[in-house]
């Protein structure tokens, strides 16, 4: 059992306990009249039991060979997925205040640049093109209301 397995199991264990307790507080009711917490309690018990089985199996059987065989991701492999997530969360935060055009331009440039940092001039051009073309296609032609943000002042 590797660190990710252990971490995810501990998280799920905590989640099942939390939801189980909250379900009891919501009211479990009885078989004749199921309360709001009845099904969530059943699901949390199922999750708890299965997670304990996985944890116990992993910890007590000492599957050293398996864990040795399991390949760990290197920083080089993780770098781009992590950068993408950070970029996307920043995008979500800036979307309303800055508007679609500016945030999408910044995000697309960031993503292109992440893949090929040496071609930044070309990337700037592509980013502007993608942001503008997608805005025209969706906002103007398909009537999807995309946020204007600070560009509202331009009318």
């Amino acid at each position, binding site marked *: 059992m590797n660190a990710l397995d252990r971490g995810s199991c501990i998280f799920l264990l905590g989640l099942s306990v939390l939801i189980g307790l909250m379900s009891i507080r919501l009211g479990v009711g009885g078989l*004749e009249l199921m309360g709001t917490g009845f099904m969530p309690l059943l699901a949390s018990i199922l999750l708890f039991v299965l997670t304990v089985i996985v944890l116990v199996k992993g910890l007590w059987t000492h599957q050293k060979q398996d864990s040795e065989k399991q390949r760990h991701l290197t920083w080089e492999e993780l770098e781009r997925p992590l950068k993408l997530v950070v970029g*996307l969360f920043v995008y979500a935060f800036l979307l309303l205040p800055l508007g679609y055009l500016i945030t999408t331009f910044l995000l697309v440039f960031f993503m292109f640049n992440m893949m*090929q940092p040496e071609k930044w001039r070309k990337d700037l051009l592509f980013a502007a093109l993608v942001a503008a073309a997608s805005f025209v296609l969706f906002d103007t032609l398909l009537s999807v209301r995309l946020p204007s943000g600070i560009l509202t002042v331009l009318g």
Partner: protein
Amino acid sequence: MDLLQTILLGFQTCLQPVNLLYCFIGTLIGTLVGVLPGLGPGGAMAILLPVTFNAPPLASIIMLAGIYYGAQYGGSTTSILMNIPGEASSIVTCLDGYQMARQGRAGPALGIAAFASFIAGTLSTFGIIILARPLVGFALKFGPPEYFALMILGLIILSFLSRKSLIKSFMMVAVGLLLSYVGMDTMAGQPRFTFGIDNLLQGMPIIPMVMGLFGIAEIMENLEGTEQGSIFKAHLSGLLPSLKDWRDSIWAIMRGTIIGFFLGILPGGGALLGSFVSYAIEKRVAKHPEEFGKGAIAGVAAPEAANNAGSQGAFIPLMTLGIPTNVVSSILFAALLVHNITPGPLMLKERPEMFWGLITSMYVGNVMLLALNLPLIGIWVKILKIPFNRLFVLIIVFCLIGVYSIDSSVWDVGVMILFGVIGYIMRKAGFESPPLVLAFILGPRMEQSLRQSLLLSQGSVGIFFEKPIALSCLILAAILVVISFSRYTVQKRQEMLQED
């Protein structure tokens, strides 16, 4: 309405220009998704779902269905030319398809894959037409206990068929159920697990969740590597298989169609299972089994027929019982609900044009796919050369606009990103998303069915054992659980995981 009338009604509906256009778009996107390794039909359907909100309901569903079965056609191209399956259901096609390409027979391999898919798709469409009505009649006998038991069976079969750890699949079922209970309990009028967040009162939004788990997570995983497979530089002329090729593969196509279709109907089935089983059977019945894996044309024809038949067979439980049995039908289920259409036995009565229109559109779609995949094969091969670092940016932008357009809400964008991260971690930790999504979709219906059943029986669980259909489903589910945890199955599964 007799059989001929229903077929005529279906064709009359699906041949309307708007439906034809959406069918073409769906099959085109499906082929593209199938050709491009890295983005599956589930992810593509989730991404395009918001685009269908302003489109006519039937046209939307026809397009989404086209993406699914279209991807089965396209998936064979990369399997044969690059030895990389475009779709999971095309994994087996690599075994003999790539070997045929290496021997200079890429053309006949691609040709027989397209023809096998077409024949299977056509026969399956008629299979659905013939089976739909009796199945709908059967489904009308279902009450809450039967539905509850069937949903339990569906979840267990899906977990049973998972390619990774069985216990982890069941864990994902539990997580999916828990997520489905977030929001207002409509029966009691009480909020659950909302943590004071108003946005959660309406529950976890399904579309951003699916887009995150499949679309964003898939892109994140693809960003790990930089290497792209090399296209086998084979001469692509002579796509039409010879008479000998047909002789060698026609019965394999027929067997693949039957196996794929019936395995596709099973809850948790779909395109994947049939392709593996049909390949194994062909190898067993072949006069020269030693040729399999070395470029046997039957080894391409059978799984390609099976995956296409399976992808269409998977529509039966959704259309007749109203129960999605895999991720793709879950997305279609969500799409139908968005358009205020409840799939199930009553759909045939209340919306016959929609029911038969969708089914016959599959035949029309198969004709389009044959035209798209044979003469235009050169274009699809060229598309394989588009660098992923340009493509993924466009997919992300499309995801962001799509998810924002649902409700003009940044919350949905955040949910999609969050589930993208969760989906990525799940992939790394060996958890599969399909059981989670299916449980999420079925969760509220399961709770409602259980509540109604227990109200009917005044709190006695005996109601599930008194009804023959419910009892059969529960017995089958119990058998599968026992088999799942038997020493033999555990050992076999561990061997399979190690091979992976």
